[in-house]
């Protein structure tokens, strides 16, 4: 940018003479290895717990754990399921539902929350009904929306949207209202217009809350989608999703496949929240330091 900044960047570059490759970094990442070790240890105990009764007889079965299929059996079933199109269709349709509901909630929730925060008349009119609707759990909307919306798919989308919407709005509202008044005063003293205040102070100041809301909202969306898929039974309209996959396995009496479905949901949720974290890091470089 300027000639002042340059010497320091040169110095920084020469201070790290050989750059480690991405793979090397991954290899040397201690917390990654700790995580992998933890998962292996967990699987090990699960295996032992599930097999206890096989080795020592039924009377030694550990309550609860003994009924769950051991990880090796689950893995075997998973390998059987993996090449099947239906399994991936379940992933696809669940992801599609989560994403569409979530994006819709972000698209409507962020502006709505910001409006609530900056305009007291808007808040006066819309906040009370919002606060009455907010405590209603998304699943309580299921019967009404099944009646109200013409197709199953639309009711699922609507309920999913609701799950994320309220969380996102409440986070955005809280974040925008909690911006330190010093920032607003400083900006105003420096001659910021109303638009500058909004775009350069309130919006970036709310970003951390927006991403918190998004992360929580994403979690709720997965919960709601899974439950909705189980309730609606999927079936009639193409892919039933991972929820239906689990339910179907239950109906078919395959314990291993139930666990496969559950772990699949866990992985899907993890991927979703990692994506949100990555986007958050990218949008908020100043937050990376903490």
């Amino acid at each position, binding site marked *: 940018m*300027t000639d002042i900044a340059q010497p320091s960047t040169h110095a920084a570059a020469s201070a790290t003479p050989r750059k480690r490759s991405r793979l090397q970094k991954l290899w040397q990442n201690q917390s990654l290895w700790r995580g992998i070790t933890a998962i292996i240890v967990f699987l090990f105990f699960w295996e032992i717990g599930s097999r206890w009764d096989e080795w020592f007889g039924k009377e030694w079965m550990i309550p609860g754990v003994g009924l769950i299929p051991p990880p090796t059996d689950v893995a075997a079933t998973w390998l059987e399921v993996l090449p099947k199109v239906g399994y991936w269709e379940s992933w696809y349709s669940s992801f599609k539902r989560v994403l569409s509901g979530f994006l819709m909630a972000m698209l409507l929730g962020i502006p709505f929350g910001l409006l609530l925060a900056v305009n007291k008349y808007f808040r006066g009119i819309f906040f009370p009904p919002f606060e009455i609707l907010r405590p209603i759990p998304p699943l309580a909307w299921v019967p009404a929306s099944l009646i109200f919306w013409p197709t199953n798919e639309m009711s699922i989308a609507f309920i999913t949207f609701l799950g994320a919407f309220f969380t996102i709005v409440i986070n955005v509202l809280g974040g925008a209202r909690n911006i330190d008044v010093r920032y607003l005063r400083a900006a105003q003293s420096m001659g910021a217009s109303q638009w500058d205040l909004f775009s350069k102070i309130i919006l*970036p100041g709310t970003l951390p809350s927006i991403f918190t809301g998004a992360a929580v909202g994403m979690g709720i969306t997965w919960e709601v989608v899974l439950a909705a898929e189980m309730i609606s039974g999927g079936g009639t309209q193409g892919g039933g999703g991972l929820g239906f996959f689990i339910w179907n396995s239950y109906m078919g009496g395959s314990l291993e496949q139930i666990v496969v479905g559950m772990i699949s949901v866990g992985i899907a949720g993890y991927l979703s929240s990692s994506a949100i974290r990555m986007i958050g890091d990218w949008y908020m470089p100043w937050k990376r330091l903490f």
Partner: protein
Amino acid sequence: MNISTPVASEGAKPMAANEGRGALSIRNVTKIYDPEGVNVMAVDNCSMEIAAGEVCMIVGPSGCGKTTLLNAIAGFHSITEGEILLDNELLCGPSKPKADQGAERMVVFQHGALFPWKTLAENVAYGPIVQGKLRKRQALEKASDMLAEAGLGDVVTKYPGEVSSGMSRRAEIVRALINDPKVLLLDEPYRAMDALTKSIMHESLLETYDRTKVTIFFITHDLEEAIFLGDKVHVVTTRPCQLKKTVEVNIPRPRSYETQSSEQFRLLMDEVNEAVHEEAIKAFQAGERELA
């Protein structure tokens, strides 16, 4: 402001940039907070004259209404009675209880108010950009130059969270100065700092002042700080805030840290200390009464 001029103005003859600008008149100002009918008088008929280019230090017990006064000058709060003028222009008065906020009165806050989501250079460049005075690129260049001048050249692209509190406070003063203010309003900017950092901050502020001769309205608890930095030390009473005593500090500028061990400095300390101590006792007793 002519930033690029070398700082070799040998102290005695400052750059003329701010000469004759920034005279503050606070005349019979009263402020009554009235939340739900509970009258709290924060400032009572307080008057002060601050000459252009003066470093005016306000010293008084905690919660006495010093910040209320600053907020009124900055335009954050209204006043109940009296008037405040800047260079003989009315900021606020009976016809207009709350001053407009403006870049000629820049505030440096107690806990700092650099925008955490902007780099130091972007923070400093913010004022000229939103005022439409400079294009973004020029503003950033000027900001980097000014930061370098304040000894922050290495950290222009860092975020406030990445630098020390001393650095961010210096950057905040640069952010104020780039707007070419008539008055710099500082509300205990160095309060939470250790003595060593503080002494560096003081020298840096003095150096900045010698260069710009901007009028400074500085609130503090620290008597040494008040005498070391100030031309005048205004001791104010405990709530409601009134002017109790003004002590003239006739120590010549530029001042260095050794000044603090001189006999003259010690005598001034005693003088200020006596006035402040009385008020501190009153404030303490008032606090005990409120609790009883």
